[in-house]
């Protein structure tokens, strides 16, 4: 595939992704907090439908098309399957931040056009956090790169 086509597909995918996030309710941090508030007596389960809907579409596409593709080397899928401390510890930190601010990365970026204080503050400090991780992990081989291109012909590990 040409580079231009790859860039065009990425843009369109990002565009559709953002429309989905907005329609789904993910760009309302108070709704995210309402979803995560399981025990507050006013639980709003809507956002489970966002993840459910996305999996409902994506899982069949993966299992019926990508997994059966004659040339699996064209898909860069994570091959790791071990449960590691960075995976769990990082997810704990992410979860705390998600509950504290009500934003995760996608909705934060899609909310930039609002120029709201919260969205801009969130994206700014999230970027700083990513740079901090980059600096902290620069010397040893990068531990946290989910989508390294797998060598052509290598079959992705089914578990991850």
């Amino acid at each position: 595939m040409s580079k231009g086509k790859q860039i065009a597909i990425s843009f369109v995918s990002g565009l559709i992704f953002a429309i989905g996030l907005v329609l789904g309710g993910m760009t309302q941090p108070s709704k995210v907090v309402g979803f995560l508030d399981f025990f507050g007596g006013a639980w709003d389960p809507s956002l489970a439908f966002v993840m459910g809907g996305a999996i409902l579409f994506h899982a069949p596409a993966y299992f019926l098309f990508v997994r059966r593709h004659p040339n699996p080397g064209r898909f860069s899928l994570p091959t790791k399957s071990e449960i590691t401390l960075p995976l769990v510890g990082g997810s704990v930190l992410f979860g705390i931040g998600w509950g504290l601010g009500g934003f995760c990365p996608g909705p934060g970026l899609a909310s930039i056009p609002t120029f709201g204080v919260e969205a801009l503050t969130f994206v700014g400090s999230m970027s700083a956090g990513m740079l901090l991780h980059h600096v902290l992990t620069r010397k040893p081989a990068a531990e946290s790169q989910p989508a390294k291109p797998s060598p052509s012909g290598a079959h992705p590990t089914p578990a991850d």
Partner: protein
Amino acid sequence: MNLEAFTPWSSLAGGLLIGLAATLMLVFNGRVAGISGIYGSAITGSDPAPWRWAFVGGLIAGGALMLPLVPELFTVAYDRTPWMVAVAGLLVGVGTRYGSGCTSGHGVCGMSRLSRRSIVATLTFVAAGAATVTLVRILGGAS
């Protein structure tokens, strides 16, 4: 349960669109639509390939397209102070990079592949998020 705030159909429709977007990325570009990974690798310069910036540009353009159509879907309306949001962003940035993904990469893409790591990560960040929200509510939030 809060039935007034419950939006199962629009949330399901939004989710299906997200699934479509992730499928386009995987089928045509061979890439996982993990937003923290795509954005993080782009801004830190560890892998600033143009397709990453195009995806981020698409996300922002999608927000800009929707904002005038459904401004109410961008309502912030909560009791978090800017300082709490700043700390939240920092934790999300560091955490998603150490944890190799966020709600999109683990919660949607990895869960769809039944990845063991993504299932563990998703359960972990939802539990940590729920614990945090509960704690902030008990402590009275910022108000």
